[in-house]
C-alpha cells in the first residue's frame, strides 16, 4: 500500500516563543502549562500518523483538540513548528514543512484540495466560477476549465444551478459546490475540515452517503476532520482520536469501539450504538475456542444446543439442533425465512452484528455460524457473545 500523507512527530505552536514552547513539549508539559509560561498556544504535539492512498482517515476530537490544526498542516495553512509532513507528489514525496513556495503552490493546485466547514465560496461568483477557482488559479485554459467544471457539476447534481450565485443556494448545495471545486482540480488528496458540521442532520447524512458513493468511484485519499463519532464511524476506514493536541488512539472503527485506549476515548464512544459499527467477525468465538466433541463434532454454543460436524477440509458435513438434524441457511436471507426451530443461520465475517442478532431472533436463539469465502467454518456467535459485545463487558 502506498503512503499518501505521512505526519512525523509534528508539533505546531502558535505564538512567538517557538523554541521555549518546543522545549516544554519535550518536557511533557500540557497545553495549559505552555500557555501560562510562554503565552503560546499549543496546536498539536508529537503527532505521527500515516494515511494510505485511497483510504478515508478521520481525525476526531472535541473542539480545541488539534484535529483541524493537524489537517491544515498538510497544505501548510498552518505552519509546522517541528517535524515532517510528507505528501505524495506523483512519484516522489515532498516535505510540506520545508518545501519552497513554488512547490507548495503546485501541491495546492494539483495534489491537495480542500473542503471547508464554512464552505469558503466567493459570493460574487457564480457556481461554475466558484468550481473553476482552483483551475483558474492553476492557469488552466478557459475551454478546458469549462469542460472540467461542467463534468464536476454533473457529478454533484448541480448542473442546473451553474449560473446562480453561491449565496442563492441552500447550505447543502453550497457544500456540494465546495466538493465540486475540490474534485475539479483532480487532486488525489482531499482535506475535509468538518465539511458537514454546518448542515442540518438530514442533509448531513445525505452528503455523507454521496461522499461515500463518489469515493467508491474516485478513490481519493481523504483526511476528514469531524467531532461527530457516528459520522467518523460511518465514513472512516481509520479513525484517529485527539485530545489536547495529542493523538490518543488510532485504529479501525471497531478497534476504537471495542478497545478504547483510555477514559477519554471511552467517554467518546459511550453513546455510540455498537450495532452500527460491529460485524460478526468482531464478536465471534474462534472455532479453536469452541468445545469439541467426538468424531469431529463441534459445539457452537456454551449451552450445547447446536453442533456441527466438520470434515478434514474445514467444511460442514452435518448439523444438529437439540439432537435433531438441522438445515443451515444464510443470514442474508433471514428476512424471508419462516420461524422454524431446526434452522441454523450462518454469516460471513463482514456481516453486521445487527443481521446476526436478527438471525438469532428468528431461530429461537440458536447460535450463528461463521464461514469464510471458501465456505470453511471459522467460528460461532452465541447469545452471550452478542450480549457482551453490545454491553461492552
Amino acid at each position, binding site marked *: 500500500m502506498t503512503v499518501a500523507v505521512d505526519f512525523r512527530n509534528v508539533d505546531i505552536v502558535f505564538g512567538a516563543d517557538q523554541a521555549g514552547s518546543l522545549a516544554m513539549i519535550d518536557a511533557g508539559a500540557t497545553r495549559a502549562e505552555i500557555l501560562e509560561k510562554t503565552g503560546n498556544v499549543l496546536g498539536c504535539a508529537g503527532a505521527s500518523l500515516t494515511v494510505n492512498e485511497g483510504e478515508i482517515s478521520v481525525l476526531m476530537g472535541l473542539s480545541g483538540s488539534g484535529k483541524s490544526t493537524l489537517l491544515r498542516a498538510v*497544505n501548510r*495553512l498552518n505552519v509546522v513548528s517541528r517535524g515532517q509532513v510528507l505528501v505524495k507528489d506523483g512519484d516522489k514525496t515532498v516535505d510540506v514543512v520545508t518545501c519552497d513556495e513554488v512547490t*507548495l*503552490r*503546485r*501541491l*495546492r*493546485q*494539483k495534489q*491537495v*484540495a*480542500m473542503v*471547508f466547514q*464554512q*464552505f*469558503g*465560496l*466567493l*459570493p*460574487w461568483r457564480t457556481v461554475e466560477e466558484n468550481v473553476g*477557482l*482552483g483551475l*483558474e*488559479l*492553476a492557469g488552466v485554459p478557459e475551454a478546458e476549465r469549462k469542460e472540467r467544471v461542467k463534468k464536476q457539476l454533473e457529478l454533484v447534481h448541480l448542473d442546473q444551478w451553474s449560473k446562480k*450565485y453561491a*449565496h442563492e443556494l441552500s447550505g447543502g448545495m453550497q457544500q456540494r459546490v465546495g466538493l465540486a*471545486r475540490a474534485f475539479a*482540480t483532480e487532486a488525489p488528496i482531499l*482535506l475535509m475540515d468538518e465539511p458537514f458540521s454546518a448542515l442540518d442532520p438530514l442533509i448531513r447524512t445525505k452528503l455523507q452517503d454521496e461522499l461515500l458513493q463518489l469515493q467508491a468511484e474516485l478513490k481519493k485519499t481523504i483526511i476528514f476532520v469531524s467531532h461527530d463519532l457516528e459520522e467518523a464511524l460511518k465514513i472512516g476506514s481509520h479513525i484517529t482520536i485527539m485530545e489536547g493536541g495529542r493523538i490518543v488512539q488510532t485504529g479501525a472503527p471497531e478497534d476504537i469501539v471495542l478497545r478504547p485506549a483510555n477514559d477519554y476515548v471511552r467517554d467518546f464512544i459511550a453513546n455510540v450504538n455498537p450495532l452500527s459499527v460491529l460485524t460478526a467477525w468482531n464478536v465471534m468465538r474462534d472455532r479453536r475456542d469452541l468445545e469439541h466433541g467426538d468424531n469431529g463434532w463441534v459445539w457452537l454454543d456454551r449451552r450445547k444446543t447446536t453442533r456441527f460436524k466438520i470434515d478434514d477440509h474445514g467444511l460442514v458435513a452435518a448439523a444438529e439442533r437439540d439432537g435433531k438434524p438441522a438445515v443451515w441457511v444464510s443470514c442474508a436471507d433471514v428476512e424471508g425465512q419462516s420461524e422454524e426451530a431446526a434452522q441454523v443461520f450462518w454469516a460471513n465475517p463482514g456481516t453486521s452484528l445487527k443481521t446476526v442478532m436478527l438471525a438469532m431472533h428468528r431461530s429461537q436463539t440458536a447460535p450463528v455460524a461463521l464461514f469464510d469465502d471458501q465456505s470453511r467454518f471459522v467460528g460461532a456467535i452465541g447469545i452471550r457473545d452478542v450480549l457482551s459485545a453490545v454491553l461492552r463487558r
Partner: protein
Amino acid sequence: MDPISKFMVDHKIPIGAWGKAFFGFLTDNFDTVFRAFSNGLNFLLDGLVDILLLVPPVLLALVIAAIAWLLQRSRPLAIGVFLGLIFIINQNLWKQTVQTLVLVVAAAAMAMAIGVPLGIWAAHKPKVYRIMLPVLDLMQTLPTFVYLIPVLTLFGLGNAPGLIVTIIFVIPTAVRLTHLGVVSVPKSIVEAGEAFGATKSQLLWKVELPSALPTIMAGLTQSIMLSLSMVVFAALIGAGGLGTEINRALGSRRIDLGLEAGLAIVVLAIVLDRMTRIAVGGKK
C-alpha cells in the same frame, strides 16, 4: 501672569518658526519646480474646463444623464440628473458648475489612485497602518485654512493648489475605507484562495479586491462628497467654480447669490452621489 506660565511662555517651542523655515527652504530652493508643476496642472484643468464648455450646456447635461443611465440602469435617475442640471443652467451657474465638477472628479480620482494602494498596503501590514493612522488623523483634522497657507506659498493661486488641498483632505477617507474593506474580507475565503494555490497577486485580484469592492466604492462616493465640501475652501486660494460665487456672496452679503450657488452645489452633490452608488447595490 504667574511665574510658571511666564517661564513656559518665555521658552516657547518655536513650532511655527520651524514650519515657516521649512516652507521657506522649500520655496527658496524648489520654487521653480513647484511653480512649473502648478502651471502644468492649471493648464490641464483649465483646458479640460474649456473643452467641456465648448459643448452646448444642454447637450452636456444630456451626456451626463446618459452616463448616469449607463451606470445605474435607472430611467428615473437619468431624468432626475438631467432636470437637476437644467436647473443649474437655468440659474446661470453652468460655467462655475463645470469648473467645480472637473475639480471634484479630478480630486476624487487622484485621491482614490493614491488612497486605494495605500489602503491595501496598510491592510496587509498592520505595522504600516499603525504608523499611517496618526498621519491620516492629522490630514483630516488639521483645520483646512491652516494648510491653505503653505500650499498657497508653494503653488500660488489657481485651480492647481485647490486640487492639491482637496486631495490631501480626501485621501484619508480613501485609505481608511479601502483598509476596512480588505481587512474585513472573510478569513474563510482568503484561506480557500490560499488552499487552492493562489499567488499573492491572484489572492489580491481574485479574492481580496472583489470582496472589498463594495466598501471601496463607498469610499469613492465619500471621496466625491468630501471633495465637494472642500470646493468652497479651495476657492479662497483661487480655485474657480461655485465656491468662488459663495465666497463672493459672503463678502458682499448677497443672500440671493449665496442661495443660488449653494443650491447648485447641493444638486451637484446629489447627482454625483446617486451616480456613483451603483457598484454597491449592484452585483452581490
